[in-house]
């Protein structure tokens, strides 16, 4: 038999944690191989390595007859592997529709339009997604997301399909459909190998071969029958527990639930006709139930049926559209702090602080619930032992495996010993042993401490443990009662069968009433015959313009789906242009000044009168003493004081050249320099007049005539300088920050995996994402240019073409810088922070908005010289105000053209093609 992958002595570390410990394995081709094991034993790491998404640290890994340590081999086999990471719809683009997602993946494998269409058609018909082709992924239920994920993985006929917990958090009906789909694909393509991890032991029964793992090591391998035989067990769940080392199963015993004794206390939770609408969509419709104090009440239903919404309404996180909800007999009130102290809540998505360690998270919550320090320490100790978290205490929560994170969330939810627990799929992704331990705790809480527990789950064995369960579908409660009652009513054998029967009945009924496409039920495994895909084309690993455009199209769609962002980008820069161009005035006007006239003679008054008429100066009441002069300058009441000495008039008449002192507030040095110039001007004007009055031609006194000619801006208006420079600022900052956020968002949301595991190369990814932002930047350029010309009335006297070409290179450089920042930073916050900090200073201070770069000193001069804004400002002023033609602008344009490629080159070097 052929092997699909050979793993030899592979070891993997995350910081100090050992994820894989010297693993050696061989996996045969054409089989469905299951990876089983508790949380955090290295299943996901192993899958990441095999798919090529993770970088191999140590050991030898051969996948599809080649060494995965070699980039060349990874590139070669990339088109033959499909990888679906853990998490519902983790690698899908939430804003895009089903069809757009599929189309994007198909484009990455260079499939021509007709082939894409045919394949999308087949796949979606087989998965019943065809009716939802235009629905955005974020509006799909979890089960549908997983089916779509599978379709995306299958779009290029992979030889190796890697599925990491594909059915975690998926309801039984969707789960069944999912496996039917896989079965039919295997029937079609028997040569395809599938590697899959799962927490459901019933699923594992159907696999060809199992690999049981624990603590980074392989415990055992074999067919399900072999494993059961080896461990002398009847089912895999027990077999799996038996395989675990002694200490791990020590406290694992069959869970016994004492019967629930109904007390006479009033119900702990009452929901009366709860309804919640989002726009015209009714998420929860007329839901009523009562939950007794101390009862364990289970909430079941397909994904997206309104379970979470109901729970959020009970906690006050969402307001109700109509109906009433009571906790402990009191109406739910979002501001009721006291009730919240008595409730523990765990939401479906991980909502603790990833950057804090496990211990820090627990301590923080203990503090926020005001547990006494000693009590808190004891409680944390108990809980961490119970949930097996004690070995993870100093790990950042974000780096924990999914199952461990769930356990941490649970520990946090119960830390303050609440009287009521509202738990939204708390055991999703948690291994069987840990789930049993958790349930032991729930049972103890419920039976001993009379804690009311309201829990939603997809596990039928958990539902069976509830005192009562309620089945929800499409916003409505179908039925509620004890699990036994529900099974009996449908005459089913198991709860799962009953569950599916109820759902199918509801779907049929709904369909017949409303006649709308809803989740259809497959009666037989779907037919799936895909047109052959052209492997040769996909193997082309050289730069592909098609893939680049696929990324551009993807990005464009995402931008268009967020019209607010687009509006901010255009309106924001337009507003800023107006505010800044009008707000920055380098003319110093309306200066407050006061006279300190110690002479009070006609001559001194005449001197001062020169200042009164000027548009630069505004007269304030006279100063009467030195102290007052200082005090008024200090308080910013005046910025200039003119001190005329006693005896000024007499001295002037006697020709003794008396001195007048001008006190200028020097705190703003630029302004001080300008004021000094104005004062000198007025002073000289006075002297000339004095001479004229005395009958002397004053100008004759001067030996030379100094004629100043202000070129390019004869009226000396600031707007002729600032007007063309402001767009330079906006065309850098806006595109750069948008670009940076776009890339780091992929990193944060996990869609970057698609870049890791598909044959996309770095340049296709970077340039493809960049293209739409260059278009946005250029549109902005046209808007801003239009505004400068028509609103600010600064004519564009020079070459428009030169300016436009410069702007194109400039926007390319700006977005390139955004790529550079995003290739280094990991989170969206860090990339915004970094882009703003690194761009603001050079652009606002060193690029010549006020002070030309050439006149700067030191680091500022150097930074300004290597910053593109400097050259674009220069170009813009030259084109607008100086009216230069293309030839004269060429130097700036050429310099601008150099920045983009340099930034992109750095970004491409620092961007990783694999995860560490």
């Amino acid at each position, binding site marked *: 038999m052929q092997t699909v992958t050979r793993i030899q002595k592979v070891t993997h570390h995350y910081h100090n944690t050992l994820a894989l410990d010297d693993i050696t394995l061989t996996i045969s081709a054409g089989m469905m191989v299951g990876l089983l094991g508790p949380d955090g034993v290295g299943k996901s790491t192993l899958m990441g390595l095999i798919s090529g998404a993770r970088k191999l640290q140590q050991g030898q890994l051969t996948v599809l007859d080649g060494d995965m340590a070699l980039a060349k081999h990874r590139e070669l086999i990339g088109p033959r592997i499909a990888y679906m990471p853990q998490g519902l719809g983790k690698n899908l683009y939430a804003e895009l529709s089903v069809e757009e997602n599929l189309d994007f993946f198909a484009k990455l494998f260079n499939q021509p339009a007709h082939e894409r269409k045919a394949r999308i058609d087949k796949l979606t018909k087989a998965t019943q997604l065809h009716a939802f082709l235009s629905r955005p992924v974020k509006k799909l239920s979890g089960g549908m997301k997983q089916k779509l994920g599978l379709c995306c993985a299958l779009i290029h006929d992979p030889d190796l399909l890697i599925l990491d917990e594909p059915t975690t958090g998926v309801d039984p009906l969707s789960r069944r459909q999912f496996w039917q789909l896989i079965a039919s694909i295997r029937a079609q393509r028997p040569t395809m190998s599938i590697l899959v991890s799962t927490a459901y032991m019933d699923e594992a029964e159907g696999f060809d071969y199992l690999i049981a793992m624990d603590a980074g090591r392989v415990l055992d391998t074999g067919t399900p029958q072999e494993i059961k035989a080896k461990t002398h067990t009847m089912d895999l769940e027990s077999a799996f527990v038996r395989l675990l080392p002694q200490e791990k199963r020590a406290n694992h015993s069959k869970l016994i639930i004492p019967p629930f004794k109904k007390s006479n206390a009033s119900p702990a939770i009452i929901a009366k006709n709860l309804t919640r609408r989002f726009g015209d969509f009714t998420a929860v419709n007329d839901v009523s139930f009562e939950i007794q104090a101390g009862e364990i009440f289970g909430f079941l239903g397909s994904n997206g049926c309104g379970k979470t919404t109901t729970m959020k309404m009970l906690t006050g996180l969402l307001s109700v559209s109509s109906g009433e909800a009571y906790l402990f007999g009191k109406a739910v009130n979002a501001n009721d702090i006291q009730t919240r102290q008595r409730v523990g809540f765990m939401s479906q998505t991980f909502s603790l602080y990833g950057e804090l360690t496990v211990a820090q998270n627990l301590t923080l919550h203990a503090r926020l619930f005001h547990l006494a320090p000693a009590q808190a320490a004891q409680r944390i100790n108990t809980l961490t032992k119970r949930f097996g978290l004690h070995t993870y205490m100093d790990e950042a929560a974000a780096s924990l495996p999914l199952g461990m994170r769930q356990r941490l969330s649970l520990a946090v939810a119960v830390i303050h010993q609440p009287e009521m627990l509202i738990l939204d799929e708390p055991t999703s992704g948690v291994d069987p042993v840990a789930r049993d331990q958790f349930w032991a705790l729930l049972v103890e809480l419920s039976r001993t401490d009379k804690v009311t527990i309201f829990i939603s789950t997809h596990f039928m064995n958990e539902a069976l443990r509830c005192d009562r369960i309620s089945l929800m579908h499409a916003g409505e409660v179908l039925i509620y009662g004890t699990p036994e009652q529900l099974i009996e009513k449908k005459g089913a054998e198991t709860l799962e069968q009953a569950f599916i029967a109820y759902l199918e009945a509801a779907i049929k009924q709904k369909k017949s009433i409303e006649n709308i496409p809803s989740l259809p039920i497959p009666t037989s495994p779907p037919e799936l015959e895909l047109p052959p895909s052209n492997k040769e084309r996909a193997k082309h690993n050289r730069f592909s313009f098609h893939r680049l455009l696929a990324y551009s199209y993807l990005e464009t769609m995402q931008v268009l789906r*967020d019209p607010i962002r687009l509006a901010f980008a255009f309106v924001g820069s337009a507003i800023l242009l107006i505010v800044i161009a009008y707000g920055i005035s380098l003319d110093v006007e309306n200066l407050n000044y006061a006279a300190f006239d110690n002479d009070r003679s006609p001559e001194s008054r005449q001197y001062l009168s020169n200042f009164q008429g000027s548009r630069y100066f505004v007269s304030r009441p006279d100063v009467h003493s030195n102290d007052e002069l200082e005090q008024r300058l200090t308080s910013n009441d005046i910025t200039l004081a003119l001190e005329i000495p006693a005896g000024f008039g007499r001295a002037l008449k006697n020709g003794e*050249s008396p001195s007048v002192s001008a006190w200028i*507030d020097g705190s703003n040095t630029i302004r001080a320099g300008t004021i000094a110039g104005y004062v000198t001007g007025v002073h000289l004007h006075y002297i000339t007049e004095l001479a004229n009055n005395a009958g002397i031609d004053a100008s*004759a006194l001067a030996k030379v005539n100094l004629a100043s000619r202000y070129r390019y801006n004869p009226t000396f208006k600031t707007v002729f300088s600032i007007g063309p420079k402001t767009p330079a600022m906006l065309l850098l900052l806006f595109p750069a920050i948008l670009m940076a956020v776009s890339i780091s968002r992929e990193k944060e949301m996990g869609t970057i995996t698609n870049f890791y595991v598909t044959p996309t190369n770095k340049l296709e990814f970077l340039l493809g994402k960049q293209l739409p932002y260059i278009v946005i930047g250029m549109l902005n350029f046209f808007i801003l240019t239009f505004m400068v010309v028509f609103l600010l009335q600064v004519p564009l006297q020079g070459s428009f073409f030169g300016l436009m070409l410069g702007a194109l290179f400039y926007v390319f450089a700006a977005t390139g810088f955004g790529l550079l920042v995003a290739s280094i930073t990991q989170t969206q916050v860090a990339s915004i922070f970094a882009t703003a*900090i690194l761009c*603001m200073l050079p652009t*606002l201070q060193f690029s010549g908005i006020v002070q030309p770069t050439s006149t*700067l000193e030191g680091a500022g001069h150097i930074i300004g010289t290597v910053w593109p804004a400097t050259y674009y400002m220069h170009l813009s002023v030259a084109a607008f105000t100086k009216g230069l033609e293309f030839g004269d602008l060429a130097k700036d344009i050429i310099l601008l053209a150099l920045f983009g490629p340099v930034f992109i080159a750095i970004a491409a070097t620092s961007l990783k093609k694999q995860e560490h």
Partner: protein
Amino acid sequence: MLNTWLNIYWLGTKELRSLLSDFIMLMLIVYSFSLAIYAEATAISESVHNASIAIVDEDQSALSGTIANALYPPYFKTPIFISAAQTDRAMDQDKFMFVVTIPPKFEQNVRQGRQPTVQIDIDATAVTQASIGNGYIQSIISQEVNYFFKRSDQSTAYPVELIMRQAFNPNGNGMWFSAINALLNQITMLTIILTGAALLREREHGTIEHLLVMPLNAFQIVMAKIWANGLIILIAFTLSMFLVVENILDIPVAGSKFLLLLGTSAYLFAAAAIGIFLGTIAQTMAQFALLVLMVIIPMVMLSGGLTPIESQPDIIQPLTWLLPSRHYMEFSQAVVFRGAGINLVWPQLTIIIALGAAFFIASLAMFRRSLKSMT
């Protein structure tokens, strides 16, 4: 009541931990308060510095030579001699900011009292440098001509002498103002982004919902973010003010340092409140990033650091009044340079706190609404 403050305290320590564990963010903060401040402060020493100048000397006399020699660094670069025909082209190409043209027979004409005309061509697109530089050139030429003929330093005796005195910064050292302006810009930008992004990140990751089902309210959550992020910036500001500004750049602080820190704290509160406010309006990080630009750029450019408030057009002035940065700029200039006490700066302090409170209250009002729109 005690619980409220305890919650704020503990939530705040969480913020500090998050930030301190992020190496890249810390490095950016360190850079912003050290190198960035230093670079900005030392970049501009004089309003005219190193200006490029050319001389068209059509006289080639001793006098024209003297004038050329008098234009030297640091105000001007060493002049380049060009021909009259080159002037237009050279100025178009931005080779020179100033071109001084000395006509033929200049010295001779001066001797004969014919008042020859020296032409000064100025590139007026650099507005400030153009006017101040022109003033310098004019006075240098007049002085040199007078000196040349009288052989004395005494310029023409005017009937009235004018003595310029710069209060608070006697040498007119431009670095002083730039340094304070740089600090203001950095704390504005960093505080707004840090606090706003901290809130938005919690919204995007759903941790805010988690907090809201605990016995905590919006006030506590917001206050915790403000004090924790504000404290980080306050510490960075203090270190920067006393190590970089006072020690390395040698800029004296005339007023009370305690008052300066007090006012800075008030301003940090206002900036953080603005950050939180933006964090409640934006739906995604991309929107937040754009909003931040739309707020920070005016706050930095219209604070009075580039253009004195009194010179801003009348339509803009009421708008800038709403910017806490404008009042903080007035405050810090008064305290650092003019040594103003609380008796003089209390109005600015009050306005800063009032504006901060207004944004704070607005964000509380937006808080719950912002959560709903996320789901």
